[in-house]
């Protein structure tokens, strides 16, 4: 018997349910396969991402965690030869369906990358970038969005006096929070984070984690992390990815409440991975 994050017991969730449940889940990935040219990178991916929860993807390097994340806001479209089979539902609508508005999708589901990648612009212009793209011109309105986003990203106090300075001058941890603020400025519903702390020191990492705990009250969060402890500390649900043999596609071995994954995993491979016995 599994329990969900509130401790209420729920029936063990099968990895593949034919019909995604709408309402409870913001994102439902169904039977997703991903190809890069002839290479099958992912197979049979099924994940449900619950609203206002943190869902973590863990697993050894190269097992396709980031690819799944990038297929949620169709950033894989940019990779030549990348092809997706299966479905990804965002609030019940298949984002790979015909005529789906990718720009709208990316606005609703923002992305934060492994290395902080602020634009070589001022702090202000970085945060205002998204709103400007979507046609906000009014100075007062931009000022407000910038301030609100920086406050929510827990960066305002550190930068409020120097918004016109280059974002490049910030520390790595500040840059990453700036990137989060930049995503928040377009008012997304979900935030995807691809190993957001990989390039940060432990204190900066902890600050990002605290921030995400705060943000999940308002946003739905999916995070890819190499750091198992981070997934354990942070997430409500965890999906464990693995590649069986060299050249095989990545698959999800186990997906469930983080409590279960880190205290009594069902799959032996999960247990061996999280206890450091392989990988």
């Amino acid at each position: 018997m599994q329990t969900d994050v509130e401790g209420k017991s729920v029936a063990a969730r099968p990895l593949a349910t034919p019909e995604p449940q709408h309402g409870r889940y913001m994102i439902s990935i169904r039977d997703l396969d991903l190809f890069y040219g002839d290479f099958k990178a992912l197979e049979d991916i099924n994940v449900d991402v619950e609203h206002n929860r943190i869902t973590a993807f863990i697993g050894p390097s190269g097992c396709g965690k980031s690819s799944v994340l990038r297929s949620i806001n169709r950033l894989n479209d940019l990779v030549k030869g990348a092809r997706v089979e299966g479905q990804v539902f965002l609030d019940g609508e298949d984002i790979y369906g015909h005529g789906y508005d990718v720009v709208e999708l990316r606005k609703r589901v923002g992305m934060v990358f492994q290395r902080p990648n602020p634009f070589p612009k001022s702090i202000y212009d970085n945060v205002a970038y998204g709103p400007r793209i979507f046609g906000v011109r009014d100075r007062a309105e931009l000022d407000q969005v910038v301030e609100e986003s920086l406050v929510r990203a827990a960066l305002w106090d550190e930068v409020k006096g120097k918004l016109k300075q280059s974002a490049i001058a910030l520390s790595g941890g500040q840059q990453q929070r700036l990137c989060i603020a930049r995503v928040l400025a377009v008012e997304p519903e979900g935030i995807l984070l691809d190993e957001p702390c990989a390039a940060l020191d432990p204190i900066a990492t902890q600050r990002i984690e605290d921030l995400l705990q705060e943000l999940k009250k308002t946003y739905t969060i999916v995070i890819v992390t190499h750091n198992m402890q981070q997934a354990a500390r942070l997430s409500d649900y965890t999906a464990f990815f693995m590649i069986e043999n060299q050249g095989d596609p990545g698959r999800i071995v186990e997906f469930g409440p983080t409590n279960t994954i880190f205290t009594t995993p069902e799959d032996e491979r999960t247990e061996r991975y999280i206890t450091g016995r392989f990988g």
Partner: protein
Amino acid sequence: MMGEMHVPARSRARKTTAKTADTVATVVLWALALVCLAVLGSIIGYILVKGLAVVFDPKFILGKPQAINAGGGILPFLLSSIYLTLLTMVIIMPIGVGAAIYMAEFAGESRITRLVRFGADSLATVPSIVFGLFGLALFVVAFGMGPCLMAGALTLALLNLPAVMRTSEEALRAVPASYREASLGLGASRWQTIRKVVLPSAVPGITTGGILTIGRILGESAALVFTMPLFATKAPTSLFSGGAAIAPNLWYTLTEAITPDAQRIAQGEAAALVILILALNLVARFLAHRYQARQGMVG
């Protein structure tokens, strides 16, 4: 004994050899760098020593050229060179950068783009005198422009286009993919991403290419031999009027001119050219730097 680590004799010897090799390499590399610097310094030094006195003569720098008598000035040449440079840059930058954007952002990797790139690289190695002949045949004769500012500018544009395109393309390619991802991830379209993120980030690289081009335009003579007058007493008054640029005139003065002070004029022109190139370089760099600072590109 304290502090004495036992090091085997052979290892100690190897360590010493490595240290010596390191010192030798450092000295040699330093020497080579000094040689380069010395060659450069002596050329510029020679030109300036010979020419500075001439350049600082107001009658020379602001005077009117003389075809036969001594005491001619070079102001029209200077102005022609500046006009020529500006006109060429105005023609070349939009086309070159535009083509570079297409190549770097849209074309992708295909047989055709490889061909274009190969063609551009090959063109860049074609001797400029060949471009001069081409300009003569096309602009001067076929289009009936005659030798004039526009004919010279178009010829120089053709000559430098491949290099501008290639350096701009490299500058665009050097913009981290993470900027593009960030922008697209925020919902920006491809064109918005290019216009607002990629292009501004590539400006320093494109500027560097532009500065090199300016130097080449100012210093170019062979391509202008047939497309612009080699000597003129007036600066061009319109796009299609004649006018002689400094570099080809320098060549003309030394080989064809019959003025008694041809040697002196050539020395003055050489120094003026060096100074002009240096000055335009500095201005371009200053503008680029200010742009970067305004954009918040530097921390």
